[in-house]
C-alpha cells in the first residue's frame, strides 16, 4: 500500500457545503464564523454531496468537509438491539451530527454512511420539539452521541450545552452523551444534571494509538472524567468495544487498573462492557474500505445478521473484563 502524501492534502473543513434552507439559520452562521478561510458552497440537499457514488472514506477522513443541513424527518429513532438500554423501557437515539472527527479503524459508521464528510443538522430545535411530543406520553432514555462524538464538536456547535439546557427543563428525559474526547472543559461551567449521563469510552493507549486514530490518550480522557466528577456529573465508563487482539488480557487489565486507580469512584454511575460487534452488511463494507486492517480481517462468526468473535472468545473476554471491573465497582452497576 502506498502512503498518502499528507503534505498534498487540504486541511480539515477546507470546504463547507450549505443547504439553501440552512443558510440563514443562526447555528449555520455561528459555525461558519469559526472557519473564516473555508470555501462555502451552496447546495440544495445534503444528499447531493453526502450520497455521491464511489467516495473514498479513507481519503475523506484525512480532509473531511462540513455539510450544514436541516433535518426534515426521522428526528428520533428507537434504540437498536445491539446497544445496551441499561434497563430503560423507552430507549431512543437521535443524531444531530452524522459522522465523526476521529478515525477509529473499527467504526461502524464507515459501513453505514457512503461518505466520511460530516453532516451537521443545524435545526436542533426541531429535534427538541419531537422529543417534547414523545415526553408527553412517557419518560424517555435518549442517546444523543451514537453516530458521532458530540462533545468533540462542542467548540463548533455548542449542541451539548443546548441538550443540557433541554434536559434541565424535562426531568422525565434521561440523556446519555457518549464520547472519547477530552473536551469536558467545553461544558465545565454548566451546572451538572441528574438526568444527564456523561459516558466515556476507554481503551489502553496501545489500542488508542493503533486503532482509534485521532482520539485523545487514556490520560486525557481520565483527566476529563475526573474534572466532570469534581463538578458533580454522573459518569458512565464504557469498555466497549473490547477487541480480540494479541495480548488483549494485558491491555484491558492495565487499562481497567489505570482507570479505577486514577478516578474517584464515588460518582461512577455504572460501567458498560461489550465486545466488538457489527452488522454483517456494515462489516462487508468496512472490510472493503480497509482491506489491510488487522482487526477487521478477523474471521468473525455471524448470527442473525450480527458479526462478532466466536462465542468462547466473547465469553472469555467479557468474563475477564467483568472480573477486573468488579474489583472496583459493585456488580449491580456493571452492564454486559
Amino acid at each position, binding site marked *: 500500500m502506498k502512503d498518502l502524501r499528507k503534505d498534498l492534502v487540504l486541511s480539515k473543513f477546507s470546504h463547507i457545503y450549505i443547504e439553501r434552507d440552512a443558510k440563514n439559520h443562526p447555528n449555520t452562521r455561528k459555525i461558519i464564523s469559526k472557519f473564516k478561510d473555508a470555501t462555502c458552497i*451552496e447546495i440544495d440537499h445534503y444528499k*447531493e454531496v453526502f450520497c455521491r*457514488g464511489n*467516495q473514498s472514506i479513507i481519503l475523506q477522513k484525512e480532509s473531511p468537509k462540513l455539510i450544514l443541513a436541516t433535518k426534515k424527518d426521522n428526528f428520533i429513532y428507537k434504540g437498536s438491539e445491539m446497544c445496551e438500554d441499561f434497563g430503560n423501557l423507552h430507549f431512543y437515539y437521535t443524531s444531530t451530527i452524522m459522522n465523526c472527527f476521529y478515525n477509529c479503524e473499527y467504526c461502524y459508521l464507515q459501513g453505514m454512511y457512503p461518505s466520511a464528510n460530516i453532516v451537521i443538522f443545524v435545526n436542533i430545535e426541531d429535534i427538541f420539539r419531537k422529543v417534547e411530543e414523545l415526553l408527553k406520553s412517557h419518560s424517555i432514555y435518549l442517546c444523543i452521541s451514537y453516530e458521532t462524538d458530540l462533545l468533540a464538536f462542542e467548540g463548533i456547535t455548542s449542541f451539548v450545552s443546548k441538550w443540557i439546557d433541554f434536559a434541565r427543563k424535562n426531568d422525565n428525559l434521561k440523556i446519555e452523551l457518549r464520547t472519547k474526547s477530552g473536551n469536558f472543559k467545553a461544558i465545565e461551567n454548566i451546572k451538572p444534571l441528574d438526568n444527564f449521563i456523561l459516558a466515556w469510552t476507554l481503551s489502553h493507549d496501545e489500542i488508542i494509538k493503533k486503532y482509534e486514530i485521532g482520539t485523545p490518550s487514556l490520560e486525557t480522557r481520565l483527566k476529563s472524567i475526573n474534572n466532570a466528577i469534581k463538578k458533580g456529573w454522573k459518569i458512565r465508563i464504557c469498555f466497549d468495544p473490547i477487541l480480540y487482539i494479541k495480548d488483549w488480557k494485558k491491555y484491558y487489565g492495565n487499562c481497567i487498573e489505570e482507570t479505577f486507580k486514577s478516578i474517584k469512584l464515588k460518582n461512577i454511575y455504572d460501567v458498560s462492557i461489550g465486545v466488538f460487534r457489527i452488522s454483517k452488511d456494515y462489516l462487508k463494507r468496512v472490510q472493503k474500505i480497509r482491506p489491510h486492517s488487522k482487526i477487521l480481517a478477523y474471521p468473525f462468526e455471524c448470527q442473525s445478521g450480527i458479526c462478532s468473535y466466536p462465542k468462547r472468545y466473547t465469553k472469555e473476554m467479557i468474563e475477564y473484563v467483568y472480573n477486573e471491573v468488579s474489583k472496583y465497582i459493585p456488580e449491580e452497576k456493571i452492564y454486559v
Partner: protein
Amino acid sequence: MIYITTAMYCEAKPFIKYLNLKRDNSIKKFQVFKNEQFVLIISGTGVISSSIATTYLLTEFNSKPSDTFINIGICGGKNKGLDKGEVVLCNKIIHHDTKRTYYSDIIFKHPFREGSLETFSNVVNKDMFSTIKGDIVDMEGAGTFKAASIFLPPHRIYCIKIVSDFLDSESLTKEEISKLLENKVPLISKWIKEIEDAYSLSYKIFTDEEEKVLEIVTKNLKLTITMEYKLRELAKYYKIHSKDLIEVIKPFLNITSKTKKEGKDYFERLKKRLSPF
C-alpha cells in the same frame, strides 16, 4: 493513468505539445493522443458529445478507480472578479437543463481559484445573465462529469476551466484559444501529475505465489466452496499479521485427500495452523 477531454483541438494542442503526446492512429472514431501517463481525447462541443467521448475513453482504456480524469477547456465568466486567462477548478457543476449538480471531492491542495460551473446546451450570451447560476459557463463540464462518475471516485474527477470571455460575444480565434491555454499548461500538468501520485491504495492481499499455493491446497484437499471461503479468510488474517503464509501452508502442498472426510480432517489441521495467536 491520467485521462483528459477537451472539446476542441485548439484546446488540446498546447497539452499535446507540452506533454509530447502522440496520435493513436488505431482509433478512428475520435482523435486520441497519448504517452505512457496521459491519454487525451477530443470530444467535440456539447454535453452529449463530451459524455460520449468520456465514456469511450474510460472504457476503451480500461480505466481503474485510481486513475484521474480531467475535463479542460475555455469558459465564459459571469463573475466580474475573474480575469481573462484565469484557471478555475470547479467545485460545483450544474447542468443547466436538468438542474442536476455534480461535485468533485476537493481533497488535494491546488494552486487554482475555485468556482461553480454551469453547463449549457447552447451558446450563452449576456441576455441570459439572470438565468446563470454558475460563476462560469461552458458546454461540456456536466456531461463529462456525469460520464466519468460511472468509472471513477469523485476525488479523481475534475473540471478545470480557463476564462476566455465575459459573455460579451467576444469570440476568439483558434490560435488565440491555444495561446490563452499555453501559459497555463505547465501549472495544470504539474498539479495533475502530483495528485495522480499522491495516493493509491492496493486492495491486493495475496501475492501471485500465495494465490497459487491456496489454489493447489483447495484442489488437492477437495475443499468445498464454504471451506475454500473459510481458508481464504483465515489465510488473509494470518498474512495481515505479517506471518509467512507460504511457510505455514507448505506441509499441506503434497497431500491429496481421497475422500471428503479426509479433506475435512486435513482442513481442520490447516485451520489450527492458521490461527495467528
